């Protein structure tokens, strides 16, 4: 097999997506993608910032048809986009807001909807074609590009569908609360429906009422692709969801209690995906039944030096797992905790070292450090920063950080201190930092 079809086994009139204007058939989608491909600039890569999941898919498909690579930034922070633009110097961007993005040439969508109904012939994309780059925060400060082949995306979509047995669950639609520019969102809310011939909801519902409304517009028994935060909100708000076929959660671990409550309330199995941008989705579990994660078909665990890694035919080399794990069987593992320095805030991973480095680049900051306070079970932990910046205010520094970082990483709180407790070698002993934080907590009677 050297290629794979752009979309799964839709018939021309099947509804491929529901967007704000109503249903979009598979044939409409194909002609829109082909029309757009014909007018895209002649450049190698494209920053796809489109907010509608459907428009994003049209842009993604059109780019693939032109053999262009879609860039998936970690966030829309201006500095992040600027760095990507500097790195991928001849990229352009697809946007629906008409907002300027750091001198990058922009194509604004949706363009005039072409009325032409081309012939119904599903294009094929070579498996080895580079179709996307997911950026992660590297230790160098420059976003690290993770190149994705069409093979990698198609393989993960197929393995996920097989594992979840979507056919047996009679799932026909997908509603997602996660962003499609995020690796999990791309895999579970764009690739999965388009490869499995399902109807995708183009929106990104946030509040429980939004999720209910999106499900009500989608085929019965849709797959809800979401996160523990959204699930918890739906349960606490007491929202009555239309019948759901299955719930798929990722970005941070679900507690068994939350999973059990969601299964009972929404009458649907709750599965979780374990993955990371460097390798994509690699394992799954049904939280109420399994403590262990089971590798997706085609993905294997391997030991690479001192790091546990994953390998697959579609990955060019073994990829280290960013968590500490314990291997419990040939294809099963348990997650023990985070690798030192790696944090995951609401599904966004970063290295504390890199965040600190970006903090130190802020004008007026003499010294500083990002830390992850010990969080409570079930609540969202936010990062904290200790900063030495004489003459600057917290607002000055937060303002500068906002230009650089994904907002989920903005420190809460950011404490200005006269100096950091560095030892004689210049290092920051963890104990000394903990002591400093404890003292601040006591003085201000704050509970972290």
């Amino acid at each position, binding site marked *: 097999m050297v290629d794979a079809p752009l979309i799964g086994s839709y018939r021309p009139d099947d509804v491929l997506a529901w967007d704000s204007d109503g249903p979009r058939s598979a044939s409409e989608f194909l002609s829109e993608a082909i029309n757009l491909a014909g007018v895209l600039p002649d450049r190698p890569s494209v920053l796809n910032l489109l907010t509608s999941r459907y428009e994003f898919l049209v842009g993604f498909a059109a780019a693939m048809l032109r053999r262009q690579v879609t860039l998936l930034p970690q966030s829309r922070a201006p500095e992040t986009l600027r760095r990507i633009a500097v790195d991928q110097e001849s990229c352009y961007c697809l946007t629906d807001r008409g907002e300027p993005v750091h001198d990058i040439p922009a194509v604004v969508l949706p363009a005039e909807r072409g009325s032409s109904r081309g012939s119904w012939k599903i294009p094929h994309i070579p498996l080895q074609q580079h179709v996307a780059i997911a950026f992660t925060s590297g230790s160098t400060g420059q976003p690290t590009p993770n190149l994705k082949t069409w093979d990698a995306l198609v393989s993960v979509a197929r393995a996920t569908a097989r594992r979840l047995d979507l056919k047996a669950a009679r799932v026909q639609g997908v509603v997602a609360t996660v962003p499609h520019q995020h690796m999990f969102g791309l895999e579970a809310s764009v690739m999965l429906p388009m490869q499995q011939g399902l109807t995708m909801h183009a929106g990104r519902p*946030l*509040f*429980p009422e*939004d999720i209910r*409304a999106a499900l009500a517009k989608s085929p019965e028994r849709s797959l809800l692709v979401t996160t523990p935060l959204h699930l918890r909100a739906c349960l*606490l*708000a007491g929202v009555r969801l239309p019948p759901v076929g299955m719930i798929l959660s990722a970005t941070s671990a679900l507690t068994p209690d939350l999973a059990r409550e969601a299964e009972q309330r929404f009458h649907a199995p709750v599965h979780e995906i374990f993955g990371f941008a460097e390798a994509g989705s690699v394992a799954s579990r049904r939280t109420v039944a399994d403590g262990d994660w089971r590798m997706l078909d085609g993905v294997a665990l391997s030991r690479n030096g001192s790091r546990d890694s994953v390998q697959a035919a579609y990955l060019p080399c073994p990829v280290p797992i960013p968590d500490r794990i314990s291997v419990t069987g040939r294809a099963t593992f348990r997650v023990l905790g985070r690798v030192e320095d790696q944090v995951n805030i609401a599904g966004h991973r970063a290295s504390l070292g890199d965040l600190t480095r970006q903090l130190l680049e802020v004008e007026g900051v003499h010294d500083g450090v990002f830390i992850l306070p010990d969080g409570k079970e079930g609540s969202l932990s936010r990062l904290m920063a200790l900063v030495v910046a004489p003459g600057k205010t917290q607002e000055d520094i937060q303002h500068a950080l906002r230009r650089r970082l994904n907002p*989920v990483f903005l420190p*809460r709180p950011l404490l200005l201190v006269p100096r950091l407790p560095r030892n004689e070698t210049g290092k920051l002993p963890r104990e000394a930092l903990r002591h400093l934080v404890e003292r601040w907590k006591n003085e*201000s009677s704050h509970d972290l």
Partner: protein
Amino acid sequence: MTSPQRSPFELEVAKLIVEALKLKADPSSIEPEAALFGEGLGLDSIDALELSLAIAQTYGYLLKSSDPEIKSTFSSLRALARAIELHRTK
């Protein structure tokens, strides 16, 4: 700022925001007309979700993104307090 004074209800909502989002801020320091998201208080969509939960639990008002006035609802403490007063069921 047209009116820096906070009504008692605005102060109550400010307390709710600070508690729900575990902000290290004094509720009475939140400017009633300043932006809650983006610059201003710097809240993000996860905060919006948390805040919507607290509002649902405290006032029985379920926020919806499809509400035409949703953008203005979240624009400032004053706008949020006004929307809650209008839609609250408890």
